[in-house]
Structures are given as structure tokens and as C-alpha cells.
């Protein structure tokens, strides 16, 4: 499962760009911090590769093995 912490995200878009499955996109709502943040469009297609987390400057993404 991929979890994105919107309080840490700054909306740079790196996770979206590097996700090999192209299942992240920029959401339409701003976080409390004022940044747009990514949302997942297709949970089932996620392969838990954790590339999104690897490329996130803020460490805002965590990937765990449990399904959600």
C-alpha cells in the first residue's frame, strides 16, 4: 500500500513522473499547507515498487506490503 502524507508533500510532481505504472496524478485539492498533492488513480495496478517513495524529496511517501 502506498500512503502519501499531504502534510509533508510539496507538490513537486516527481513521484507522478517516475511511477512506472502511471497511476499517480496531481489532485485538485490543496493540502492544509497549501500545496496540491498526488492521488492514486488505480490502486490495483500498483506493483509496490516504491520508486515514488525513492524519488520523493520530502520523504512524504511510505510503501508497505499490506494491501488496501
Amino acid at each position, binding site marked *: 500500500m502506498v500512503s502519501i502524507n499531504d502534510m509533508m508533500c510539496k507538490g513537486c510532481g516527481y513521484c507522478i513522473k517516475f511511477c512506472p505504472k502511471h497511476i499517480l496524478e496531481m489532485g485538485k485539492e490543496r493540502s492544509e499547507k497549501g500545496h496540491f498533492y498526488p492521488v492514486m488513480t488505480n490502486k490495483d495496478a500498483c506493483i509496490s515498487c516504491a520508486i515514488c517513495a525513492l524519488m520523493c524529496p520530502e*520523504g512524504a511517501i511510505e510503501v508497505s506490503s499490506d494491501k488496501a
Partner: protein
Amino acid sequence: MAEYKRPSSLMPMATGYCPGCMHALATRLVADVIDELQQADNAINVVSVGCSALNLYSWKGDVIGSAHGRAPAVATGIKRCLPDRLVFTYQGDGDLAAIGLAEIMSAANRGENFTVIFANNQTYGMTGGQMAPTTLIGQKTTTTRFGRDAQTTGYPLKMCELISVLEAPVFVARYALNSVKGVQDAKKGIKKAFEMQMAGKGFTFIELLTNCPTNWGMNPLDTLEYMNTNTIPYFKPGIYKDKEAEA
């Protein structure tokens, strides 16, 4: 399947960096490796002066500041007194290659047993985007408004190349943080440098090619491509010296 957990050396909060700033990414990578090596309680982060130093606010472990360019001298003292601690400096290109050039060359030449993490974003980020010694030819900054001209300011300093010709350093390598492969390699390089330090091998130097979206005047995603076309062709990633491999 892979898992990823936020590293324990980082506070549970956003960094002080601009969106997409690779100082944040570089800091996180260092923290990732420190966790992998189980050194969170043993590491000492010697920060420099510049945006580079902003990582001290999110660093949970031990941090010490230093005067501009003098992080290698501070790290020398700490490591000589506390040889069992994992000691690294985190320095920007203005700090390391301009005001601190004598300091870094001397520490490298003495073969001090600590690791340098050198974040090269080709500008003085903190002070408003002035030219650094590493600014590329033709690059526009607030002090090179028509692009850096080699006639008046010389050429961008290649620190890995310079340091690798010294006798003492044991591992010298450069990585670019604008791709998955670059980041994966950087993590391996940082790990190798830390392991060599822990084995008492000597001076290790990791240059990370980073960005400064704010002063480059670009959105973060555009800096990725800019680095491919401009930064990487001049500052070539690779391992410049590896005494373990030579042995």
C-alpha cells in the same frame, strides 16, 4: 515488491526546502543509508553554510554547524576525537568549492577518515542565485546576467576530478539525482563511502548533482530535463577513484 519507511534520522515534518529541491532528496538518501547501516544514533552531520544547512532543522540525530567552508576542519576534529562515530559533512558548491576550497583540498589530502556529501546545484542558492565556481558556461545567474563567460570567470570547477588525483582519498564518485538510476546509484555510493569510513579506510567524497528550482527559475520537473542536457554532459557521473577496487 518493495517497502519504504521514512528514515528514523528525519523529524516527522516537511523540510525547509523549496518544492522539488534536491537538497531534501539528498538528505533523505543519506538518512536512508544511515538506517540501513543502523547508525542513526552514531552519525554526526556536520553542516555548512547555505541552503545545504537547512537540513539541520529536520535532522533528528547529532548535528554541528561550522563556519562557511570550514565543515571539513570541524569534521576532522570530531572524527579524530571520536573515531567510532560516523562523521559526514554536508556541503553546497559555494561552500565547498569557493570559500572552502583550501579546507576541502587539505582534508582530502590528509586522508581524514570522514565522508563528504557535496551537493552541487551550480549556484549560491541561499543568497539569491549568484554564480558559484560550479556554474555552467552560459548559465544565467544574478551575477552572470548574460550567462557565465569563461573569459572573465574561468570554467566550472570539477571537484571529483580534482580530488581524485590526490594520493590519500579512497573513494570519490559523482551521481546525478534527476533519474531513478542516478538516485539508486547515489544510494549505493553513499553506502559504500560510509562503510569504508567505518572500516577506517580514509577520506571518501560523494558529489551529488542537484538542482535549485527557485534560483534556476524553473518548475521542479523542468530541472530534471535541464540537468540531462546541461549539467550531466559537463559534470560526468561516475566513480573517479576506488582504492578498494584497485586493490
